[in-house]
């Protein structure tokens, strides 16, 4: 393989990073950097001393918090939410009611508001998890309208008039009320105090959002955004992650809402309309979907822009709308798009010597297997020894309408062998794979893997049981770097909790490091380490296949299903593939292979099963299959035209 050209990482202010101060700076943890920058911001604006612009800046900070929340839902997880203002409203009303009716301190209302909106997120999320994106858009829009109407009609919430006399924030011995309202009366004003508080809240929101984005959770979200089906199949619990995205998004909205309530002094339902939801959505798209700096820039642009247009007050929405369309036409990726690639992702990790690598992977794999086997046996399940059946399929049938795609198929795959499934197009090979991996629920039949039935389990649980797979049409996560693609494959092995990811605890960091190291090993294993920082879409067809194999192997499965791995490969690449497949077998991983390339199948397989029209027509060693009259007639062709048949099948 040819060495990849170095990818230039696009870093803003790269020259600053190379100065000495810059080097110290980049070594600080993210939270410290954010807090320091926040401190500077908190000091600078009051010193500038223009109350009007401070007020605008406080508004922008509030919107930035909202944007960070919606960015989790729409930017990372790819769930289009058109009713995000509902969370803003729920947060604001929760805080306002607690402050006005129960005389709570503002800072004490924050955790309550955040919890309530998180719950609201779960309530919205739960019934909508299985909806497709456009349907989701209308349901979220409906949720937003329902919330607004409910608040307007709720007498306890003040009805259409809302809640007034919401107190300013206070800490014992000090309240914002004590401060002068304008600059003319003193140096540090009420607006300045709000600015300091808003910067503090924004910094917290930003730090948590950053931690989530750079954890396994953020990776899982992006994977499910890119290809929900593939994410589920490689072990990402997509439904649970979607729900988590709604909860997290709701929490950020609650934070922004509570702050809005105390800042604005009086709230009413008109602040939480569809227009608000749209403004937040526009904010994150303008800035660059899924990009944290983008959210900050987007907040500044969408809040300050209309202020600058104030002189033409009547037409400002028109001008704003036209600017928005132009922006989408000429820079649809946003002002500061998210970049998910790195030239040297493994920088600073321990190196593996290539010759020791295989031994090392083998040792680790065996250790893991032994550990799991012990646990498995302890739980009372039968562990298949080498040469014993690890996968038992009995009477498997699947039907689409009137077509019997798979008809009463039974076979056993022995632990440690390479088992191939061949047959003409439409024979039901991929359907068998889909029934095994939980993508489809078979109409009838038994599927027992490693002593336990896996029939009807969701795909991510099948993956967690040790059944990895690749796809007929390549399904890598296109906007993720190669190394991240492989890291997603390890998702099911993670043991850290969400709170650890939020806080970026040492335990979580260590696990991320291990995951990265593991991803690198598997990339080395398939010979793709040099391309690890590229985007998946930048690779050739054959290289993408190999990354897919690395992703399937990364969770140390017992058995991998490879669906037409040789399709579209040239002879050299096929040769390399044979090497990879035999190396997988040498690890002790059982391989089930579908392919049309007969010479490849004959060469690597221990046993072959031939399907035709959904039925097994032959099963045996390669030599037996070659001689089997039914196979020759149905698939291979007679001796004299064998070459043609293979050529046609491979095409």
């Amino acid at each position, binding site marked *: 393989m040819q060495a990849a050209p170095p990818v230039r990482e696009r870093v803003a202010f790269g020259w600053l990073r190379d100065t000495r101060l810059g080097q110290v700076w980049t070594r600080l943890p993210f939270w410290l950097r954010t807090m320091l920058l926040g401190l500077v911001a908190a000091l600078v604006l009051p010193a500038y001393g223009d109350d009007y612009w401070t007020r605008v800046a406080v508004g922008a900070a509030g919107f930035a918090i909202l944007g960070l929340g919606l960015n989790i839902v729409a930017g990372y997880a790819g769930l289009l939410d058109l009713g995000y203002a509902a969370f803003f409203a729920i947060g604001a009303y929760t805080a306002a009611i607690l402050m006005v009716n129960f005389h709570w301190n503002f800072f004490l209302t924050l955790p309550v508001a955040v919890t309530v909106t998180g719950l609201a997120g779960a309530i919205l999320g739960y019934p909508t998890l299985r909806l497709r994106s456009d349907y989701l858009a209308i349901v979220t829009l409906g949720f937003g309208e329902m919330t607004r109407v409910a608040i307007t009609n709720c007498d306890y919430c003040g009805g259409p008039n809302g809640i007034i006399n919401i107190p300013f924030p206070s800490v014992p011995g000090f309240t914002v009320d004590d401060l002068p309202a304008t600059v003319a009366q003193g140096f540090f004003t009420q607006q300045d105090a709000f600015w300091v508080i808003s910067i503090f809240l924004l910094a917290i929101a930003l730090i948590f959002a950053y931690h989530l984005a750079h954890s396994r959770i953020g990776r899982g979200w992006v994977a499910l955004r890119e290809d929900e089906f593939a994410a589920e199949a490689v072990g990402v619990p997509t439904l649970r992650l979607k729900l988590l995205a709604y909860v997290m998004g709701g929490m950020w909205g609650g934070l922004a809402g509570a702050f809005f309530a105390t800042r604005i002094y009086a709230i009413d339902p008109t602040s939480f309309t569809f227009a608000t939801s749209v403004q937040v*959505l526009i904010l994150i798209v303008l800035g660059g979907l899924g990009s944290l700096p983008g959210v900050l820039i987007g907040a500044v642009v969408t809040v300050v822009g209309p202020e600058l247009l104030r002189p033409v007050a009547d037409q400002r929405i028109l001008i704003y709308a036209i600017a928005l369309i132009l922006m989408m036409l000429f820079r649809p990726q946003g002002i500061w798009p998210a970049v998910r690639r790195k030239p040297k992702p493994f920088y600073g990790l321990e190196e593996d010597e290539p010759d020791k690598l295989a031994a090392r992977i083998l040792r680790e794999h065996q250790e893991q297997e032994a550990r799991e086997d012990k646990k498995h046996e302890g739980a009372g399940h039968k562990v298949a020894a080498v040469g014993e059946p690890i996968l038992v399929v009995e009477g498997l049938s699947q039907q689409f309408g009137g077509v019997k795609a798979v008809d009463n198929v039974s076979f056993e795959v022995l632990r440690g062998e390479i088992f191939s499934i061949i047959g003409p197009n439409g024979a039901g090979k991929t359907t068998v794979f889909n029934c095994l991996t939980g993508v489809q629920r078979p109409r009838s039949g038994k599927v027992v893997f490693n002593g336990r039935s896996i029939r009807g389990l969701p795909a991510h649980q099948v993956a967690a049981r040790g059944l990895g797979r690749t796809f007929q049409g390549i399904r890598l996560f296109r906007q993720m770097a190669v190394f991240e693609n492989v890291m997603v494959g390890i998702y099911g092995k993670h043991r850290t909790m969400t709170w650890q990811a939020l806080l970026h605890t040492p335990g979580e960091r260590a696990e991320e490091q291990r995951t990265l190291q593991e991803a690198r090993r598997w990339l080395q294993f398939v010979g793709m380490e040099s391309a690890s920082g590229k985007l998946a879409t930048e690779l050739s067809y054959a290289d993408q296949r190999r990354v897919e194999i690395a992703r399937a192997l990364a969770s140390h499965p017992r058995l991998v299903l490879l669906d037409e791995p040789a399709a579209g490969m040239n002879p050299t690449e096929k040769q390399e593939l044979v090497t990879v497949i035999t190396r997988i077998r040498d690890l002790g991983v059982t391989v089930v292979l579908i392919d049309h390339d007969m010479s490849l199948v004959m060469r690597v397989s221990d046993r072959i099963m031939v399907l035709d029209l959904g039925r097994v027509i032959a099963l045996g060693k390669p030599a037996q299959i070659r001689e089997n009259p039914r196979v020759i007639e149905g698939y291979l062709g007679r001796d004299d035209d064998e070459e043609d048949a293979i050529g046609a099948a491979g095409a």
Partner: protein
Amino acid sequence: MGPFLQYTINGLTVGSFYALVALGYTIVYGIIRLINFAQGDLTVVGMFLGWSLLTQFGIRLLPLPVALFLAFLIPMLGTAVTNVVILQLAYKPLLKRSLLAILITALGASLVLQNVVRLIFGPQIQAYPDIVPLNGFGIGPAHVSYLQVVLFAASILLMLALYLFTQGTPVGTAMRALAVDHDAARLMGINVDRVIQIAFVVGGLLAAASGVMLGIYYIQIQFNNGFLLGLRAFTAAVLGGIGNIPGAMAGGMIIGLLESYTAGYISSKWQDVVVFGVLILVLVIRPMGLFGERVAERM
């Protein structure tokens, strides 16, 4: 029983307007998977074009049928052209890009239309002249105005025409082909750009037709009517299964009836909550809408 019949009649009338606007959403969505947020505002554009023809250009001096014909025809042509202009300027360059970018553009287009209407016709409420007599007849205790009958019949005819158009004509067949697979349709020799344009023309025609009807029925119109109208109509399209023409019709009727019953038996304040509550319930049970078909994903 008395009020029930009356609510049903009112609901069906309103529902038929929603259905017409919903068809505009559905026909565009079916082809390019875009929620055309501008559809509601386009309806308002048609509404105001009709209003200005009837009040400011003196076509009322013509015999009533001719006047009505012109009051529908000219706005329909106007909105059809507007819709195609929006398509060419704003959506076309983005068709191959992310769906979200087009969606945001559509929101932008909606705002632009709304504010252009405001700029030209003013922010105040305007009133349609009462050109059609309001009297009617009774069915038992319920009252049906001739206007309701005419409008209801007209929208049913339009829907029927559209249905036959998509099912029976070559262009309609091409539209349905595009709804399934753009590339395959292109390979079969379908002029994809042209078909998309036709879809937008149809969407525009429907917008003004429903707009003028709404104006005649409700009398009072304002530049920002488009949002709520669009929201209801889009809900109708989704309820029926978006992209599906009979579904949009049924969805519109259901929403109209739900609104009417809620207003009659509970309170008009809770209309939206009931409508969206039913929508969410339906989608939870049938994620593809009432008439939508489940699309199997090919691995």
